[in-house]
């Protein structure tokens, strides 16, 4: 039987506020354990939470960018469960009245547009971090992360392949980066993703048995885990087996998912309204005011790049996939008018180096002026395209301006016809035999002569000029 895949994703995003969601403790990453805690986030009796205004504004920004409707009255609820990562034994979250709902993100599937519906975006607080010392019968808790402001972004089960899930995440992350509300760093856990996946016979409308996947720490990990899981579910059904609703953990090293021990009882969080927080009413004017602060988002930017700079769909898509890259491109185009050349170099050599060094565009030690300066040197034939590649790599590596590198290394290309002419004459004299070979019809000898000229000039002669002068000298 042929099966189709149904995937829904749940993303947790840490908001980049200075302080936690409900208290004034710092959200800084990687600090001394339990040094960013207070009576509120430790759940001491008598302490009261109060909502971080900036976190709320960030949340509405995200909701609007994801085309969500904003709840007229926002309330918080307590999600009760006993686990030591929560000192209060409940997490402040949102249950029946999430901050926002009914949004969407569009992705491209086989050249067509596919709409992934966003079911809800709600606010909650993060839990503390547990460590399990090996070989010991206890766990250690650091509550620095406890109470940090999180957004939970939940889609409808609208994705029908691991690839679509990957594309949705990439698009979502791009939007979130444009909004500058989070550093979106998966390694630091600022952005986390869980996936729900099931399969069903093609054409069936009822959903199959759902498996929740956890523990993926990259978008590729999400895609790989989903690919593995789809195959696993398929083979279970093909063998006449039955799938169980469960949570499975992705093991990136082994490339498999394993069943997480499940409790006999279904989850029962006994949600109820958080009595320590009064309701929040978001006025229409306030929503519109925040909407006006939204930056130009990837789709709009891509459309503008296409119209203004004549870029292809593909180029515009790649260049706007990261806000830093898009900004860099625009800076460059201001300094150097040939947008297509800028795009090619950026998407080629520059991105390759950035990816290879595993850094962000923002960390690239090459100012747009320096980069476009390099392009100008190619145009004026001061250096060849091949030299430019080497200079670019070195400029990124050493943080030295391309012009300076060219000068220091004496890399400038020799385009001066007179200078090349004399080298050519010298070579022709020395290689008299090759010249006569050439004249008697051995055409390959020409390339050898070009090579000799390049060697004499240490590769600095402009090849086009060398060709021209050689041909003339050989009487063609």
């Amino acid at each position, binding site marked *: 039987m042929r099966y189709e895949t149904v995937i829904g994703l749940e993303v947790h995003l840490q908001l980049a506020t200075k302080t936690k969601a409900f208290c*004034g403790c710092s959200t800084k990453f990687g600090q001394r354990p339990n040094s960013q805690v207070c009576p509120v986030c430790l759940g001491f009796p008598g302490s009261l939470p*109060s909502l971080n205004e900036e976190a709320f504004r960030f949340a509405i920004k995200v909701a609007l960018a994801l085309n969500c409707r904003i709840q007229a009255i926002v309330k918080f609820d307590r999600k009760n469960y006993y686990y030591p990562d929560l000192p209060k034994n409940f997490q402040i979250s949102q249950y029946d009245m999430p901050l926002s709902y009914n949004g969407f993100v569009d992705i491209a599937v086989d050249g067509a547009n596919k709409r992934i519906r966003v079911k809800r975006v709600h606010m909650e607080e993060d839990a503390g971090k547990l460590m399990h010392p090996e070989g*010991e019968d206890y766990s250690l808790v*650091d509550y620095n992360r406890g109470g940090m402001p999180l957004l939970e972004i939940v889609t409808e089960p609208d994705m029908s392949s691991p690839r679509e899930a990957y594309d949705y995440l990439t698009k979502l992350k791009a939007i979130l980066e444009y909004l500058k509300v989070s550093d979106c760093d998966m390694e630091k856990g600022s952005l986390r993703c869980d996936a729900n996946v099931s399969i069903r016979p093609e054409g069936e409308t009822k959903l199959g048995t759902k498996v929740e996947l956890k523990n993926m720490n990259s978008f590729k990990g999400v895609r790989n885990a989903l690919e593995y899981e789809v195959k696993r579910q398929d083979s279970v059904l093909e063998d006449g087996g039955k799938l169980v609703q469960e949570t499975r953990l992705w093991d990136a090293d082994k490339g498999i998912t394993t069943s997480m021990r499940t409790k006999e009882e279904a989850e029962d969080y006994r949600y109820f309204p958080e009595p320590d927080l009064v309701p929040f009413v978001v006025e229409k004017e306030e929503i519109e005011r925040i909407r006006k602060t939204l930056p130009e988002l990837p789709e709009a930017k891509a459309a503008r790049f296409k119209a203004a700079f004549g870029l292809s769909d593909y180029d515009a898509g790649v260049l706007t996939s990261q806000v830093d890259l898009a900004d860099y491109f625009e800076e460059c185009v201001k300094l150097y008018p040939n947008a297509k050349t800028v795009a090619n170099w950026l998407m080629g050599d520059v991105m390759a180096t950035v990816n290879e060094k595993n850094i962000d565009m923002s960390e690239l030690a090459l100012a747009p002026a320096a980069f476009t300066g390099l392009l100008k040197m190619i145009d004026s034939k001061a250096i060849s395209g091949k030299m430019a590649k080497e200079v670019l790599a070195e400029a990124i590596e050493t943080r030295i301006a391309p012009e300076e590198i060219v000068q220091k290394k004496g890399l400038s290309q020799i385009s001066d016809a007179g200078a090349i002419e004399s080298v050519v004459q010298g070579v022709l004299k020395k290689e008299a035999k090759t010249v006569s070979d050439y004249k008697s019809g051995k055409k390959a000898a020409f390339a050898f002569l070009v090579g000799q000229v390049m060697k004499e000039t240490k590769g600095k002669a402009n090849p086009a000029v060398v060709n021209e002068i050689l041909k003339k000298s050989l009487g063609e």
Partner: protein
Amino acid sequence: MKTIDKKTVEKVAHLARLKLDDKELELYSGQLASILLYISKLNEIDTANVIPTSHALATLKNVFRKDCLKRSLTPDEALENAPSKEGDFFKVPQIIEGK
């Protein structure tokens, strides 16, 4: 009105991490049943057109805090009353994956 049975009390006790023996289960089942019966009187009121009251302070809304740093406790202060600790950490019985 359905009264609460022993099984439900057992489940609620488990969720609250309470250990109850048979005698206590019996006792609390009876007490909880009478409390629920009393509360259920509220169900007689028609609330179809009433906005849910999620908070007692009906006139209070939009209480925010500015995103400003406040002094946190030091790890020593935070751990001062912890029944068990190790270094800068709270120490708890081992947790097995899955919550």
